[in-house]
């Protein structure tokens, strides 16, 4: 029986998952050039600085694109279909991939405002940042 996929937390992204467990959406900020980026990496993708700080994003953004998933790659997710998989542009100007959840998600459109919420998983230490339609 397949289990729902969970992140394999590593030394690069441990702070991100620690933040998520505490209800914070953390993204990386380059100490040298100020660039913000996601997903977590070992260098700034602009200037190659290895000095990166973690900053808390407001957790607000807009739906950039979305797809209703009927056939998940991992069959363990089948019980949840259709799943609204989406790209979100955070207010800070960074694209992230996540889900749009909640009752109102059925009417989701590109450009809709969303806000992060943190979803429980099978692991007590891991919470997943997902998004709900705002307002």
């Amino acid at each position, binding site marked *: 029986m397949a289990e729902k996929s969970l992140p394999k937390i590593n030394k*690069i992204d441990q702070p991100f998952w620690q933040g998520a467990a505490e209800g914070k959406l953390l993204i990386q900020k380059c100490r040298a050039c100020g660039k913000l980026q996601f997903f977590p990496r070992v260098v700034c993708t602009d200037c190659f600085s290895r000095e990166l700080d973690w900053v808390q994003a407001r957790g607000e953004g807009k739906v950039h694109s979305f797809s209703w998933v009927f056939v998940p790659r*991992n069959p363990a997710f089948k019980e949840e279909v259709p799943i609204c998989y989406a790209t979100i542009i955070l207010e800070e100007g960074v694209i992230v991939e996540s889900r749009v959840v909640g009752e109102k998600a059925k009417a989701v459109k*590109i450009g809709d405002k969303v806000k992060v919420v943190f979803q429980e998983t099978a692991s007590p230490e891991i919470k997943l940042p997902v998004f709900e339609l705002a307002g």
Partner: protein
Amino acid sequence: MRRRKVCLVGYGSTEYSRKSEEPLLRHYAQAIGAALDQTGLKKSEIQGFSVTTQASPDYSPHVAEQLGLELDWVLNGDYGGAGGVTSVRRAADAIEAGHIDVAVLVGGNSFDKSVVHQRPLEYQRANYVDVYGYGGPNTLMALVQRRHMEQYGTTLEQIGKIAVTQRENARLNPQALLRDPMSLEDYLKSRMISDPIRLFDCVMPCSGAECVVLASEERARSITDKLVYLVTDAEKINYQVANMLPDKTTFGIKVVGDRLFADVRREQIDLFELYDDYPIAVMIQIEDLGYCGKGEGGKFVESHDLSFKGNFPVNTGGGELSVGQAGLAGGFLHIVEALRQLRGEAGPRQMKKAERALVTGIGWLSYGRNLGTTAGLIMERRA
């Protein structure tokens, strides 16, 4: 433009099947054997050898050992769907440099259960994509397609026309697994997989292999009188990687196209073998290659005949959408079909004039953006 002359001198294909558990090695051997028969080359004349696959034990030196090949050059041409074109580029570089005169490139897939066929997901896919229950590449391309439809008003009918026309081409291709007629209505009514991607937007995984043989011009003249030259080729890896607000509807193929068309004029191309993991990807490549403006792909498709008899022939053998996708052999399928057309060996779907072909490969949908690997080449038949 290639500094020295390199030719594509032959090819070999296996039959495709849906669920065959035949060992992948047998598929490789069959495709390579067909290419050796066509070119008259002996096994001992293979100096360079490349394998393109996601089957994990198939590291190319190991495959070569099992096939009894002693070599002077070896490559794992594993760059997703771009692996066919990029392998040709690497082999052509080695021939230009004088390291080898003959290279055999093979790609394939099987459902042999004794072999692991997929690599583990890379870190960003595992930790930031798969955890949300995504539907694999179908979902990631669905995000691209929805953006294209929203930004430019592209319709499902326009996208579907690509799949429908390729099916018409496939009806004359005995290798194609999907040869039944398909109407636009069939396309529109096909089962939803990852909205707006439907079943007939997706390739059918299958087993089989494709092989391509390259040689220096001097050597090529002793192998065949059907000389097909590699004229120019280019690649772009991780286009827009540092852009946190990427344009999802433009691929690295835009940069590839600019480089290719520095050497050849757009109107000199007779046929287009564009990597077709999805019809929307074909439409976007037509835009990125500059045959119409960004966002005008829908209207372009509507106003052109994409069949092998048409005024803008695309995927004349049916493409991966109708032939089937034998894993990373998919990147080679387009090269082999271009060779068939340029050599006049395409049978009932042979084009009247096929002197120059443009072939692309695209692969690996990356985080937040679109294609991680993109590549293209132009080949030309000369007397």
